[in-house]
């Protein structure tokens, strides 16, 4: 595999500014998270900023959307979008249950097959986008519908239950178990943190990450410098599919069952997390750290509003406002940077 130097002088300069922009973006996102956290802590000091609330409630509830948003980040950086992460998650959950419950495969094998299945869904998305030239919105929209229907068809529209105390205890343990002795820290959060580290390494330390950003910045220039952009797009979408599958694994491990009718709407929350974290929808720049912070911001807002018994409807209004504010600040700063 040839690795031409994509850092020609122009892109080197751009990537330095890009790097700086990313740092500032992450800082802003982090400050936003701290600010929101402080606001809720002042409102509910006895209850909100406690260890059990932070780990058991906030971090735990961020896991599934967080996993989906990791994969979505990789795709959005290419300038694309993935609307199928929600129902794809559900289909992967159904497949995980089919492997382990219906086909009685051992847990480790079921997990591997589910991850591969998620990669397959991503592979189809990537092929539709890269080879057939479908706009990512359309390609992943079609996949979203297919996945939604297949999940119902394969499961016969019924939940598939894992044997939580017997054969699949290890599977359930992945979510609600407690690996770290002495402290109460759900494994699901560990899985999410591990996945985030993997995504970070992928994006920042591997060819996949470099080409991801390169394709998102300027796909023609990338292709002209000898990189097979079509192949790499497919690889990127397939990799995102791995995270979608992991999301399906974690939600079905949490619930102890594969719920075939859920998932629709999760993709919007995943995309919201990516955007709030500072990744631009036009592609070419973005960070995993930002996405993780974005997922945490959403989880903090949901948890804080629930604890304060604020009516459900307001949660979405506030989330929408947060997205608007974040994107506005980003645009404002980009324009100032460009004009200076």
């Amino acid at each position, binding site marked *: 595999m040839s690795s031409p130097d994509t850092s020609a002088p122009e892109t080197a300069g751009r990537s330095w500014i890009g790097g700086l922009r990313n740092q500032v973006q992450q800082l802003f996102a982090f400050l936003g998270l701290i600010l929101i956290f402080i606001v809720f802590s002042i409102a509910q000091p006895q*209850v909100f900023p406690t260890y059990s609330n932070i780990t058991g409630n906030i971090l735990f509830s961020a896991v599934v959307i967080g996993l989906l948003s990791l994969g979505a980040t990789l795709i959005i950086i290419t300038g694309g979008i993935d609307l199928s992460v929600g129902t794809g998650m559900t289909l992967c959950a159904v497949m995980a249950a089919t492997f382990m419950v219906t086909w009685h495969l051992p847990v480790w094998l079921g997990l591997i097959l589910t991850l591969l299945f998620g990669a397959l869904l991503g592979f*189809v998305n990537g*092929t539709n986008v890269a080879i057939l030239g479908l706009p990512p919105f359309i390609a992943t929209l079609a996949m979203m519908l*297919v996945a939604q*229907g297949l999940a119902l068809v394969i499961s016969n529209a019924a939940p598939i239950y894992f044997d939580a105390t017997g054969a699949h205890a290890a599977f359930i343990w992945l979510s609600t178990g407690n690996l770290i002795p002495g402290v109460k820290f759900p494994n699901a959060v560990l899985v999410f943190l591990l996945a985030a580290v993997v995504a970070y390494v992928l994006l920042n330390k591997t060819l996949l990450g470099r080409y991801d950003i390169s394709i998102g910045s300027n796909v023609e220039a990338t292709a002209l410098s000898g990189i097979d952009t079509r192949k790499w797009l497919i690889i990127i979408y397939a990799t995102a599919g791995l995270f979608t599958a992991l999301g399906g694994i974690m939600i079905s491990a949490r619930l*102890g069952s594969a719920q075939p009718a859920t998932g629709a709407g999760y993709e919007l929350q995943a995309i919201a997390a990516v955007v709030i974290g500072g990744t631009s929808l036009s592609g070419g720049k973005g960070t995993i750290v930002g996405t993780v912070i974005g997922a945490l911001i959403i989880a903090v807002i949901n*948890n804080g509003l629930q604890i304060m018994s604020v009516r*459900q409807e307001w949660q979405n209004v506030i989330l929408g406002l947060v997205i608007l504010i974040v994107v506005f600040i980003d645009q404002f700063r980009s324009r100032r940077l460009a004009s200076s």
Partner: protein
Amino acid sequence: MRKISVGLAALGVAASLTLAACSSGTPTASGSAGGDSGAKPYIAIVSKGFQHQFWQAVKSGAESKAKELNVDITFEGPAAETEVEAQMTMLQAALAKKPAALGFAALDSKAAASVLQQFKDANIPVIAFDSGVDSDIPLTTAATDNKAAAAEAAKHMCELIGSKGTVGMIVHDQVSKSGTDRRDGFIEGMKANCPDVKLLDPQYGSGDQAKSADIAKSMIQANPDIAGIFGSNEGSAIGAVKGVQEAGDAAKNVKLVGFDSGQAQIDAINSGVMAGAITQNPVGMGEALVQAAVDAINGKTLPKTIDTGFYWYDKTNIDDPKIQAVLYK
């Protein structure tokens, strides 16, 4: 590699588009096999969908009654109980098929008014079930008296918590009649049976188990002395169970009261995590619905409501044959 991927991709896209062309509900036709289906009356049934196993039980009751009465039915619904518009589209599609009668469980008790008027104008009798419609068009409504059922749940909740403490409610929605009736019925029941208990504002989880679990944990976090939680449908109740389990020691004394059944709720009651629940009679509802539709087709007058009944069940009576008959997995 390229040719194979193009072939795969083309197949993928063709499959995507073909399947995407079908609606997101999965309609099934049933009724007697063979014979001249043109002669048999056809009843279109639009339910609330597939989010809960409750509907599969209604469907099985409807199918067996349809077989007995020799009519054809289709039984469909949207993928989630939030998809009001998708349900409206299904109603329109059902109208186009010119059924002999329509069975309808409204996701939104007001949204369907204009479409139902079209059914009336076409002289197609409408039978409402599960959630009533704010309209005179349905000839009858085969449903559980949700208000009374929820009030019964409240009565048991008061007994379970000793008539003191704080109680939270996780309701599935505030748009369908089943949601509003169960919420209001529970609130009234609590006021009537244990007025000193502090009742938290209801929170809405859309019947999504994960969301309901998160809500339950937030409630437990915010109210450490919480004595009981009520889940107003299958998804909300199972979510409450998960939330209580995840909260661990902080929630070990919380009394859970649920609604409907489903394998997870049955397991929770058997293991003691859930104190008890109200079950409807979904199979009976499906049977009553088809019977009422056939009666309407044959010109019989129908009562304004058909009460399909509800029962409280817990560990002590769950194995009762009368209860077993109405539970579903």
